[in-house]
């Protein structure tokens, strides 16, 4: 009964490959996010979706394409992977905006590009 689940947990791939990370939440939330955490543990928002609509695209390269088939899912597809994409990617969800509520995070996907 995991609240926010993302798969895979680990992903090792070569430069130039295309990969996807899946995220699902069973909390009934209407807003979902992708965050990137670098090697220094700095967390930065990448995308925010509300009711399947893109709200925020935080200057993320076009190689990253999120897709939200429904409110419970937000997947992240990455084309032409680069070494600098190596990081931990977190999916999160919330009910509404951060004005009044907290976010629930998945366990993270550690992406290593070699």
């Amino acid at each position, binding site marked *: 009964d995991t609240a*926010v689940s993302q798969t895979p947990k680990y992903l090792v791939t070569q430069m130039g490959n295309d990969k996807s990370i899946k995220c699902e939440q069973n909390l009934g939330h209407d*807003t979902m996010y992708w965050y990137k955490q670098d090697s220094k543990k700095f967390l930065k*928002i990448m995308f*925010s979706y509300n009711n399947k609509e893109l709200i925020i695209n935080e200057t993320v390269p076009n190689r990253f394409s999120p897709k939200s088939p429904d409110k419970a899912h937000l997947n992240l597809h990455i084309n032409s992977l680069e070494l600098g994409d190596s990081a931990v990617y977190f999916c999160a969800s919330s009910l509404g*905006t*951060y*004005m*009044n*509520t907290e976010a629930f995070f998945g366990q993270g996907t550690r992406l290593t590009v070699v």
Partner: protein
Amino acid sequence: SQQGEEDPQALSIQEGENATMNCSYKTSINNLQWYRQNSGRGLVHLILIRSNEREKHSGRLRVTLDTSKKSSSLLITASRAADTASYFCATPASGGSNYKLTFGKGTLLTVNP
């Protein structure tokens, strides 16, 4: 740009001692949130304090907010080895965008048994 800045960057204490972490931010906020991240895990929400609140408690956690100084503190009392983790403060982004949280760099707390 980064909103929250935690201080100290790292803190090492003995079990049973209290741990205090500070967070400073730059712009006006509606609320401030604290999260914990255990090594290799996702973030877990600890507490949310609204801009009209000065202090909030949750179990062994005590959070204060001083909007005049744009700062917050997280106090963990009677710390346990299981409290070892990174702690982040986060605020809804300024400029009207409430669909993202801006995180600080975090404080790495080590509680020695």
